[in-house]
């Protein structure tokens, strides 16, 4: 399983390789991105269901649900999990130390664009802007969106429906 994860991680970091070799040695990929970069990321589909979870280190419900996402990613090879941090882009160390402390495996991108009204509807029109929120994109590009905290059961249910 570890090997598989590592492969996933490598495949992923190759497809968005801007990080230095130093960073790729750490457990998780971390990078600060702009909205256009995020949009490009969303366009890149694979044969997996991509799960973009919007969160922040200070958001209690987000932190609570993260292990469910990591667990499903570890158990289910058809899932590709990507964490999108809404933390303050001026203080990325809050995110990197969180990643280390919680041993986050999935790649983490800090979306550094506070002009929220310009892009929230583009992610999904049903999103009010509250976090946590999760965007699921199937390999054929079909999107589905969930605003609010998920239990492990709810998350599995959504993923099973998407298969």
């Amino acid at each position, binding site marked *: 399983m570890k090997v598989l994860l590592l492969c996933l991680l490598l495949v992923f970091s190759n497809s968005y390789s801007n990080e230095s070799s130093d960073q790729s040695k750490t457990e998780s990929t971390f990078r600060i991105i702009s909205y256009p970069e995020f949009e490009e990321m969303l366009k890149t589909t694979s044969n997996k269901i991509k799960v973009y979870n*919007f969160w*922040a280190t*200070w*958001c*209690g*419900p987000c932190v609570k649900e993260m292990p469910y996402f990591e667990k499903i990613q570890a158990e289910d090879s058809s899932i590709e999990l990507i964490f999108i941090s*809404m933390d*303050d882009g*001026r203080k990325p160390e809050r995110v990197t130390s969180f990643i280390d402390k919680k041993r986050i495996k999935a790649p983490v991108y800090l979306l550094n664009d*506070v*002009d*929220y*009204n*310009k892009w*929230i*509807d583009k992610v999904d029109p049903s*999103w*009010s*802007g*509250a*976090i*946590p929120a999760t965007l699921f994109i199937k390999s054929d590009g079909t999107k589905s969106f*969930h*605003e*609010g*905290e998920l239990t492990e059961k*709810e998350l599995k*249910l*959504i993923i099973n*429906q998407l298969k």
Partner: protein
Amino acid sequence: MKKIQIGVMSFVLSMGLIVGAMAQNPGYKIGDKAADFKLKSVDGSWVSLPNNAKGAIVIFTCNTCPYVVAYEDRMIDLHKKYAAKGYPVIAINSNDDKVSPGDSFEKMKDRSKSKKFPYAYAYDKSQEVIKKYGASRTPHVYLLHKEGNDFMVKYIGAIDNNYQDPTGVTEKYVEEALDDLMNGRKVAVESTKAIGCSIKWTKNAQ
């Protein structure tokens, strides 16, 4: 084929369940009439929509959300600038204090005292008011304008377009909407979205 049908069926059903589970009244839209309320403020007084005003800047807020903290000074400034013009800020915290102990009424009093809030800061403990209005995050602004005896919803959304840096703001949504209202114009930008903290809803008693 049958498998697909069952798949589609169960998808529709379960999405219905999910939507149903988070079912929340979508709340007010622009042009709706806003309901009055009677909530206790941190100074012990009861707060309602102000009869003698031209409107109100109702902001669903709390103590604990970093976005709120980033906006507190700007909320104070809004009140100082617009209360005298007939549009006071009314801040409402609707977070359940069992789910979020930092948002208790006592903690609201502390926060109000230390920041010297010039506006009412009221507790919507039953969450009835926020459910009627339909706010989903903090801070979430409902700008109301009085027409006859009714308070009409004229703007819903964020305070401005840069929570991090007040000097980096290029669109002051609430102020621009107020300027439109005070000059008898239709509000140009009637709704905006922003990343915010989720509302800490009361968990159903088991």
